């Protein structure tokens, strides 16, 4: 049969044809292919007109995102909600039970409840731009992603957090030499201010670090014998340092905490204990990224993901919010306070570090 013959000949020629096409495209217009997809996506996103983002509380990041996005994509509305990580998962599960799918982007955490509840889709398929897709720029997907499957929720920020001290009281040399052990000095009993680590928040991730450095006994010594003053908000911690009530603060970063004070002209010399694995832990500043399943604006979501992960935005945001980007091609803000290459840092937000169990222990040590 002639027909059969023709078909089978064509069939045999197929791989060749495909190979030729790929070679042509790959050589001459690799750019064209992602560019075309990108343009198509942006066009579709503009039709969608909106992207809905839930993010962790951070006024500076929020302001940056709103302003920068408006400048870059004025046609697409960025609807940004500051979410309380505690209420968000029940809220979204309830919404979904009622058939409402309202959210596109998760920009908080990492939060394992979101993952457990099955709210997130793999992130990598959303990446279109080549500099966004390249795992090497992010230190490998295994390091960037927080979920077990390494595909749902990734950290954008390299946040190195160390307790800080008033250098007028504690000699920097001593701090450098002894590291966090200074905190166990009975001289500083009652002089340590600590964002209440019994509540999920900026005080609690330090528990993993302290347990790592001091061991369980040392942690108990710190929490019970040193009688640290727990406070309910960041400003109280900063004030306690500024007013001289406390010498050591375990609450976020001094440059952001004390920014208001130093800008206003308060003279105070506070320094972090260090950037070594023995003095600092690594976190994400609540700026992980994920995409929701059944998101209402899939194309706008894609645009947002590629936008926020791009080198330009990563660099701008790093300066705006004063946190290092995880991108290797964005310079750290302070070359003297950055991760030592190859060193292992406690990452309190990884499940294996049991931050939550330490928190329970502290609740028992300090019931009131």
């Amino acid at each position: 049969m002639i027909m059969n013959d023709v078909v089978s000949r064509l069939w045999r020629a197929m791989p060749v044809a495909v190979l030729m096409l790929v070679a042509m495209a790959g050589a001459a217009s690799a750019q064209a292919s992602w560019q075309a997809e990108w343009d198509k996506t942006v066009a579709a996103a503009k039709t969608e007109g909106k992207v809905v983002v839930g993010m962790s509380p951070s006024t500076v990041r929020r302001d940056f995102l709103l302003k920068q996005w408006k400048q870059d994509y004025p046609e697409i509305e960025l609807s940004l909600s500051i979410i309380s990580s505690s209420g968000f998962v029940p809220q979204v599960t309830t919404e979904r039970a009622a058939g409402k799918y309202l959210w596109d982007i998760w920009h908080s955490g990492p939060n394992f409840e979101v993952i457990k509840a099955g709210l997130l889709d793999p992130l990598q398929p959303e990446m279109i731009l080549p500099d966004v897709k390249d795992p090497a720029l992010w230190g490998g997907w295994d390091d960037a992603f927080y979920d077990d499957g390494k595909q749902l929720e990734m950290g954008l920020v390299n946040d190195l957090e160390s307790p800080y001290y008033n250098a007028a009281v504690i000699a920097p040399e001593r701090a450098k030499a002894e590291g966090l052990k200074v905190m166990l000095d009975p001289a500083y009993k009652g002089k340590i201010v600590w964002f209440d680590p019994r509540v999920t928040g900026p005080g609690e991730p330090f528990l993993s670090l302290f347990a790592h450095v001091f061991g369980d006994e040392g942690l108990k010594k710190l929490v019970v014998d040193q009688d640290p003053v727990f406070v309910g908000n960041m400003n109280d911690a900063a004030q306690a340092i500024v007013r001289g009530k406390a010498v050591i603060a375990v609450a976020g970063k001094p440059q952001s905490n004390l920014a208001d004070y130093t800008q206003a002209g308060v003279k105070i010399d506070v320094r972090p204990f260090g950037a070594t694995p023995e003095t600092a832990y690594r976190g994400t500043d609540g700026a992980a990224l994920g995409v929701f399943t059944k998101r209402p604006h899939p194309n706008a979501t894609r645009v947002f993901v590629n936008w926020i992960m791009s080198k330009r935005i990563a660099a701008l945001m790093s300066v705006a919010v004063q946190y290092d980007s995880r991108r290797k091609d964005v310079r750290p803000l302070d070359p003297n306070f950055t991760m030592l290459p190859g060193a292992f840092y406690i990452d309190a937000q990884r499940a294996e570090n049991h931050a939550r169990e330490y928190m329970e222990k502290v609740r028992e040590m300090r019931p009131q």
Partner: protein
Amino acid sequence: MTTEPLDAVPVSAFAWVFRRLYMARGEIVAAAVFAAVAFLVLYPIGTVVYLTFVPNELSGVFGTIPWYRAFSEPGMLQSVLNTIYVVVAVQVISMPLSVGISWFLARTDLPGARMIEFCFWIMFFLPSMGVMTGWLLLFDPDFGLFNQWLIDAGLIKASIFNLYSFWGIVFVHLTTYGISVKVMLLTPAFRNLDSSVEEASFLCGANRWRTLIRIVLPLMTPAMLVVLLMSIIRGLETFEIEQVLGTPIKFQVYSTKLYLLMANSPPEFRAAGTLGTAVLAMVLPLIVLQRWASTRRSFAVVGGRGGNARIRLGRWRWPAFIAMAGGVAFMSLLPFLMLVAGSFMKLFGFFDLPQVWTFDHWATALADITFIASLRNMLYLGFGTAFLAVGIYALVAYCAVRAKSRLRGAIDMVTWLPYTVPGIVLSFGYLNMALQVPIFALLYGTVGALILVSFLASMPLGVQVIKVNMLQMGTEIEEAGRIVGGGWTRTFRRIILPIGSPTLAVVGIMVFASTIRSVSSIMLLSTGANRVLSVLQLEFLSGGSLGPAAVVGTVIVLISLAAAIVVRLVSSRFGIQARG
């Protein structure tokens, strides 16, 4: 006009049943009101209570039975005791004080009584966080201005009042809601009192003190019980004060433990729900008691004759004024000014900076991309809730007082319930209702959903206050409206509402003010599209921008004040308060 022939032929059974139903329409309406209120109230509460009995699959190893989980929380017992200490101390101090103040404002010729009363409204509008920060500025043990001045003046060696203490916590409770709510509600109630009641007692030779104790206060029982109960519940619910002042001195209360569970990751809604349900269980007997005490006899004091002679203070007039005005200025104007000043300070509480004052926070807040939309949403929310609330609360309160039905008591009880479960816990129940009830689901993501929730959240306050007012209004006032030819709706609109209007105005303002500043109940229903100013304030606050947060807080207070002033002007213009 309906005409019935004298000897009507026997009617069919169907027609008879129909007529019987028509006769019972009052009861049917009351039943419908009850059903609607009960549904709206019990749906969210039922959700929360139900979940406390469902094993907590989210929290995995950490206790699967919510009740056990919550009450095995370390330090729980001590926290419960601490709560009781605070509540008792606050009520023992505030109750006699508030009754005394209200009596002075309403029943005597105290100069400037209206202004002083208004200052208590200001006190009510002020956010508790703002007030507390203001007090810290004065009474911080180390840098508090007041303590410093006294030390500098050589009067004392060490600070005399430390806000970080049990009495400091009690003090903040008193100056935020403890006294203000009571005075706001008791003053109109005292004003309604027919002066002939007092006069009769004077004629019998009783002095003023005895008159107050033996005659006036017993008549005020329903009003006093309601404010007392509200104040106790509010005290159980508030956690910000102890969170800030109690955490450093190791003083935790029930509500901070509850907050702790909610703030966990994963959040322990169910365990927190058990704590909320426990409050409900504790408060319910009090509600029953209150209902019993306010219905076992008549408390009608507005008889339709109205005499409102004030007691002359004589030579005590000006000393009383100075004491009252001084106290009120200290408790309301001072924190208010500090709040406003704080929004202009470069660093709150730092007077020794090279540059103390700045407009930066205002510029930041007002220039925020979402500010205008949030303001607009807030106004929709505030006015929407206030208008919806005043009308419907009045109807519900009417049914709770006058319905010729056994449901009367049930309606009364049910309206209390949203208050008995802390808003932070109940918000999850509200979320469920807003999403699962088809009509409400249409509103989800809009301001409408927030109005619904705020309406429910304010219902106990609104309904109870109006109820007390209606208990004071004699039934004949209303019956006269019917007899002269007005139907029930017309009588309600033309007689009952206008006579109750001073109270309704107070309720409207209270609902407006508490709606636009509250976050806890609406938080879970808030999205980018229906963001209101209070949510924006929380966003600033949790994002560490204290200055802009203070600005937004100030804006909220100023709007409440403006609304309150307008209401006062309007009501005095139309002579609604003529009797006062």
